[in-house]
């Protein structure tokens, strides 16, 4: 038996293929939306991977450092290092802000500035690898930037009032929001995080000086000490902890909570915070969009197939009159609908693959999502064809005779 659907498609292939391409662009958008969601999840996973930590120690009763602000004294890490099972502990600060190359405001971009203690690869908080340049070695005014910032090696970038020379470039170091990271020395980051402008410092000094508690007659050193304390920052956002091999993260976390009175999250808990709290709303937003796109696609396929079927009512009546089985006619319409979906899927997948790198944030197109997408497309096309099939099967063969 010849394929009636195939012959019909070949007969009007131009219209069919162009319709499939139009549908394909819609499917491409749908796949891209799924890719954006996957990209967000992957960004969160990469953020945790790149931190190199097994435990995140944060301010008590906060979900810091990524989901909520957290502030710790920068000397707490020493006490944590003494606990059994802890191999390494390092302070870290995170601050999302606008960073721009010196003298080139047009290339300003949003970045997560990460303050780390200059050290070697593999230490908590450090970028895991570089694609160019070197790691941070000095205590001040050096930066390692993610490639997606667009900053170049040797270029100077401005963070708050200071200039930092880009000495290294890394890749896929991004925040959970997809902002690229710029690593700078911890001391500079602490200063940048809490730095006030000169006018504010003068006003603060004046306020402190007129406070009789701090400016006592005959005790000028009290005021000096208070002023010094006010201009120094001794806070960090978190302490990243690397455990000894074989150490139980939950047990070490429990020890830190009990003895240091701090909040601690294991990798699994931090993953949960990022996915269930930080990106949950965005994920739901994208899911809603996916549902709407799927419904729109289904409606479009149904409309196209219905219109194509209406255009063949006479032929269908003749086919029925000459004894074609209902299932042959239904199969013809179903095959055309699925064919349309397959063309659309190929076009959509190709389009999504080509335009994914153009998106400002990471779009991760997983083969498993593509396979699921193909299945959904086929299912939607099959369901969408039901209306047209119903119409075709209700055609009276007598219509071919007329009268």
């Amino acid at each position, binding site marked *: *038996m*010849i394929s*009636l659907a195939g*012959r*019909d498609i*070949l*007969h*009007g292939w131009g219209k069919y293929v162009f319709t499939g391409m139009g549908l394909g662009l819609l499917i491409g958008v749908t796949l891209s939306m799924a890719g954006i969601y996957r990209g967000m999840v992957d960004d969160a996973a990469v953020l945790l991977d790149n931190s190199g930590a097994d435990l995140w120690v944060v301010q008590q009763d906060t979900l810091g450092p990524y989901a909520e602000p957290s502030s710790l004294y920068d000397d707490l890490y020493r006490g944590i290092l003494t606990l059994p099972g802890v191999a390494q502990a390092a302070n870290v600060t995170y601050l999302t802000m606008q960073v721009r190359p010196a003298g080139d405001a047009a290339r300003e971009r949003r970045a997560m500035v990460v303050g780390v203690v200059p050290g070697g690869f593999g230490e908590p908080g450090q970028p895991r690898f570089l694609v160019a340049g070197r790691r941070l070695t000095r205590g001040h005014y050096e930066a390692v930037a993610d490639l997606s910032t667009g900053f170049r090696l040797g270029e100077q970038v401005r963070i708050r009032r200071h200039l930092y020379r880009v000495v290294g470039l890394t890749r896929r170091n991004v925040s959970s929001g997809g902002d690229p990271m710029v690593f700078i020395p911890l001391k500079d980051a602490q200063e940048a995080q809490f730095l006030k402008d000169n006018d504010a410092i003068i006003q603060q000094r004046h306020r402190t000086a007129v406070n009789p508690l701090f400016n006592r007659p005959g005790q000028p050193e009290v005021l000096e000490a208070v002023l010094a304390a006010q201009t120094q920052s001794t806070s960090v956002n978190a302490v990243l902890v690397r455990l000894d091999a074989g150490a139980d993260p939950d047990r070490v976390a429990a020890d830190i909570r009990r003895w240091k009175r701090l909040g601690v999250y294991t990798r699994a808990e931090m993953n949960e915070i990022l996915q269930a709290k930080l990106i949950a709303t965005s994920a739901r937003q994208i899911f809603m969009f996916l549902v709407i796109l799927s419904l729109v696609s289904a409606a479009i396929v149904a409309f196209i197939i219905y219109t194509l079927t209406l255009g063949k009512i*006479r*032929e269908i009546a*003749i*086919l*029925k*009159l*000459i*004894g*074609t*089985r209902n299932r*042959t006619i239904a199969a013809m319409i179903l095959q055309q609908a699925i064919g349309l979906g397959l063309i659309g899927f190929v076009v959509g997948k190709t389009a999504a693959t080509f335009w994914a790198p153009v998106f400002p944030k990471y779009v991760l197109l997983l083969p498993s999502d593509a396979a699921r997408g193909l299945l959904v497309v086929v299912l939607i096309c099959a369901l969408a064809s039901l209306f047209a099939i119903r119409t075709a099967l209700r055609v*009276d*063969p*007598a219509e*071919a*005779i*007329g*009268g």
Partner: protein
Amino acid sequence: MADVESTPGEGIHIEGLRKRYGRGETAVDALKGADIAVAAGEVVGLVGPSGSGKSTLLKCLGAVTEPSGGRMTLGGRVIYDEGWRIPDLRALRRDRIGFVFQAPHLIPFLNVTDNVALLPMLAGHANADARARARELLEALDVGHRAQAMPSQLSGGEQQRVAIARALVSRPPVILADEPTAPLDSERALGVIGILNRMAREYRTAVIVVTHDEKIIPTFERIYHIRDGRTHEELGEGRMST
């Protein structure tokens, strides 16, 4: 693999065929007792004014509409008998009735050969066999040279000959031709009737031609007139008959 066992060559017979549309006071009797008998190899005309029941009769003969009463035999097999009917009318239409329409109504996305070969393919014959049978018929109808053409590439006369080939390809006991010459000029119209006569004799098929066409009415040996749902037989001039 025909669903209906074929016993060709015995024509079509209807006795007292009735068809009522609707119920109660609004019921309309479109056929009030039609009688037709067409022998194998014979071509008869069926004429009648609009509203006479011609289309209803054609639909009943074509197993598209079920009659309310009466009896019909096709190729020696009872199709309807006072409320009873054979179970599979679709297979009956496929295997035992050929249709030729006013417009050829060829499937636009199949080429000429496949338009003709479709019926045997639907009946389960191998594609090669079906196409061979189609080509044989197309040759017999002088359109063999257009076997690979698409319907849109044919002239009106060629399309009608392909339609006749399609109607004949299953070697049905009866062909119902509904105004087959209406869009054609006299020469082509007579040509089509000539072909139907030739094929009827060759394939031992009974042919009923529904027509208003004054050009071809004189070619029938017998003509059935239908008026107010009843048929009346008349002898025609039969200029085409042997």
